């Protein structure tokens, strides 16, 4: 029993990372009108930035700010590519945005597997990992890294939901999400808000990179693909663009994975998680939380 509780705690920490990733992904889908498959890849390369900065300066403060800034810069750099697709005359082409994002993902993977650390996985210094024990009751341990992850995730998710549902900027984002031509007609400055959106996604990505590096303490060129597939799956299972659904499904995936890892050989966790998703998609093709009708 205690082991199960311990695994659930691990799962919640991991799940909250998924939640943040899916939230960023959904935001780009709804407001940016793109399927940003490369979003988790940019998070991973920001983890590399963090690792490099720690190695160079040994200063956690520089690492924190450097990671966030590099993530924001990377997002702003790719924005013109997507803008080019989405401002062409005619309907927005979400499929070609997916191809462009896939291309970005491949390029980032190549960079990580050839240029960075000779392609070897990177390991963060032990003190960065905050694996020190915050609380221990018998076998149940909560590390400070897990605690940070949880607290910061809750704060960030809360801040994002307030931004989206309570502020004028959020209303404008939702208006764009509903109908971009109506939003344009209304006088909402689409291009400026789009740039802002990429900035926000970059900020979020930087924070995720920091949390993830503290939580798992390592990264590799293949990590991007590993989590990107899950993020895509969670987003689709919850219902593409469904923020609240993504929150719940992300947490559930984290917990389920941690439990599976405990009871079965680790390599099974992916297969089982995807099997469950396949099952859900068969029953509810438009996701658990989206209305299963043509109207959208």
């Amino acid at each position: 029993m205690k082991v199960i509780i311990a695994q659930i705690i691990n799962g919640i920490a991991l799940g909250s990372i998924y939640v943040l990733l899916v939230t960023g992904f959904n935001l780009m889908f709804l407001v940016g009108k793109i399927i940003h498959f490369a979003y988790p890849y940019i998070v991973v390369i920001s983890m590399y930035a963090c690792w490099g900065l720690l190695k160079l300066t040994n200063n956690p403060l520089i690492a924190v700010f450097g990671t966030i800034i590099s993530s924001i810069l990377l997002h702003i750099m790719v924005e013109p590519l997507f803008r080019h697709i989405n401002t062409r005359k005619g309907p927005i082409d979400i499929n070609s945005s997916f191809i462009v994002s896939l291309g970005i993902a491949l390029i980032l993977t190549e960079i990580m597997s050839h240029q960075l650390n000779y392609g070897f996985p990177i390991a963060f210094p032990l003190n960065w990992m905050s694996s020190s024990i915050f609380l221990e009751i018998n076998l149940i341990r909560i590390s400070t890294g897990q605690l940070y992850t949880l607290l910061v995730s809750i704060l960030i998710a809360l801040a994002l939901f307030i931004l989206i549902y309570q502020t004028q900027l959020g209303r404008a984002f939702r208006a764009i999400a509903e109908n971009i031509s109506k939003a344009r007609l209304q006088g909402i400055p689409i291009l400026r808000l789009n740039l802002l959106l990429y900035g926000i996604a970059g900020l979020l990505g930087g924070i995720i990179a920091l949390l993830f590096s503290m939580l798992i303490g390592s990264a590799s060129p293949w990590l991007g693909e590993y989590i990107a597939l899950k993020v895509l799956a969670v987003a689709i299972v919850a219902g593409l663009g469904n923020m609240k659904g993504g929150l719940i499904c992300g947490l559930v995936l984290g917990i389920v994975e941690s439990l599976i890892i405990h009871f079965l050989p680790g390599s099974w966790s992916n297969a089982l998680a995807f099997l469950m998703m396949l099952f859900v998609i068969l029953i509810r093709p438009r996701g658990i939380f989206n209305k299963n009708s043509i109207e959208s």
Partner: protein
Amino acid sequence: MAPNREKIILKIENMTVRYGPIFALKKVNLKIAQGEIVVLIGSNGAGKSTLLKSIIGLEKPTEGHIIYQEKEISLWGPDHITRFGIFLIPEDGGIFRTLTVEENLQLGAYHFFSQYQERIEVVIKLFPVLKERLKQVAGTLSGGEQRVLAFGKALMSNSRILMLDEPSIGLSPKYIVQIFETIQALNQRGYTILLAEQNVIQASKYANRIYVLENGQIVLNGNASDLRNHPRIKEAYFGS
């Protein structure tokens, strides 16, 4: 408010708009004086919506000028133009169906959010139905209520010229009269109105002047009282 014929607020000169090879508008000229109600009439596909869309900046003319209060605006985008006082209520009302009534009104005041409180009071006084429905999701309003919200949203902005694309479409005769009376009331409050309509009989009762569009060209224009009896209009629209 009596129109001030001396003061031209919007002027379109020789404007051509194309969709690829299709000429939707050909060398259109149009003038609107401050305080007027001007009606654009024309059958389906004549180019009415295109004309309104190019004024608001959604379509870019390939030729010609749009001059608003002495400024050339034909290259501006809609965000710029709405901020400087022109607003278009499109055929579908342009309301955001997934947002609440209140959120729609807040977005209406997008560029003037600091004045939100004053404006909302004016709008609610004009359209009291909106008051009880502020928290309702706009998509669940009745068709008529959605029209009212579209008006409310437009008035939240700082517009002087209100353009409406076929506001009477799909409404019962009684409601159509109400819509036109609302338009007239807004005109009396100082709004200059440019209206695209197929409902010539109603529109011509309220209009100061009329422009007739056919195949992207202005074929006729003049005072509403004169044009109503013009043989060409009688034949085409009154069926006599």
